[in-house]
């Protein structure tokens, strides 16, 4: 990677430079949201649908003004039909074929219902949607989503909102290794920039965050921190980090140091 070949991310034919995607919920104010998006350098933000009459429109004007591409989600959907209908409403309203597909299987863990997810993905892909499925780190599910027509996957790092970072590093590394060509964005469970850097170092293509930024003490500074960490992780992946090793090794060469005699 040098200056002449910038490192870009292509999602369903759309090219972006930033590998940080941001959710738009839970910020202390619309202004902080706008500034966080700018500070993080995010070019894509997620949005949702609400029942008319339950809030204002300031948020939406502000997102439009930001120039960011929107990725609508189907948050809160607990069945295939709810998710499919929500996707259609989102496509019409936001004028984009992109949909972050969530089919939630458990109200406590908010984990994906992988059966409903695959079925909804199959329906939506067939209807021309460009689906970003929020899924687990299960390789078999990933393969079925690809078979269904998905060209991007969004595996979780840990349950939504826990902020605990990668729950199963082995599984996430294994998924990356088995699907080296697929664009995969880690979604959910990251709490700190080091977590985001870690998954980027593993070779994931991008990171989607919401709570970790929006609920930080200073969301704007935290967005910037995550933006830097994602870039750091990406660079490190391309620059090939050293392997961890069990034995210590001196960084300063020992031969030639004063007083040195073989131990």
């Amino acid at each position, binding site marked *: 990677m040098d200056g002449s070949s910038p490192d870009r991310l292509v999602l369903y034919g759309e090219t972006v430079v930033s590998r940080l995607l941001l959710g738009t919920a839970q910020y202390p104010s619309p202004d902080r949201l706008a500034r966080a998006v700018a500070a993080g350098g995010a070019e894509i933000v997620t949005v949702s649908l609400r029942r*008319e009459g339950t809030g204002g429109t300031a948020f939406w004007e502000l997102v439009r003004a930001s120039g960011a591409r929107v990725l609508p989600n189907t948050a809160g959907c607990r069945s295939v039909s709810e998710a499919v*209908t929500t996707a259609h409403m989102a496509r019409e309203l936001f004028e984009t074929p992109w949909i972050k597909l969530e089919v939630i299987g458990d109200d406590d863990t908010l984990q994906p219902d992988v059966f409903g997810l695959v079925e909804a993905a199959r329906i939506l892909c067939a209807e021309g949607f460009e689906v970003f499925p929020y899924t687990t780190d299960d390789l078999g599910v990933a393969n079925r989503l690809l078979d269904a027509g998905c060209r991007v996957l969004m595996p979780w790092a840990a349950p939504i909102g826990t902020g605990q970072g990668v729950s199963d590093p082995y599984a996430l590394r294994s998924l990356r290794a088995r699907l080296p060509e697929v664009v995969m964005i880690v979604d959910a469970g990251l709490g700190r920039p080091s977590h985001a850097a870690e998954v980027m170092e593993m070779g994931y293509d991008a990171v989607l965050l919401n709570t970790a930024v929006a609920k930080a003490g200073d969301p704007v500074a935290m967005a910037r921190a995550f933006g830097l960490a994602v870039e750091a992780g990406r660079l490190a992946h391309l620059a090939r980090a050293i392997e961890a090793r069990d034995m210590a090794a001196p960084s300063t060469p020992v031969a030639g140091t004063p007083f040195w005699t073989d131990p």
Partner: protein
Amino acid sequence: MRIVLNGKAHETGALTLAALLEEMGVGENRVATAVNGRFAPRPMRAATPLSDGDAVEVVSPMEGG
């Protein structure tokens, strides 16, 4: 006629989805709609009749993660 609008009981005189939006004073390009769990595309609203007991969703953009 009594429908369920966005999860709540609602009395309406509107005979179509388009009429309901007008009654609600909602700009038709600002929302998306579904009736009885199925998407009702914008061009079809005028041709979408409402019946007693229908469940109607009228949604607009919201913050999301």
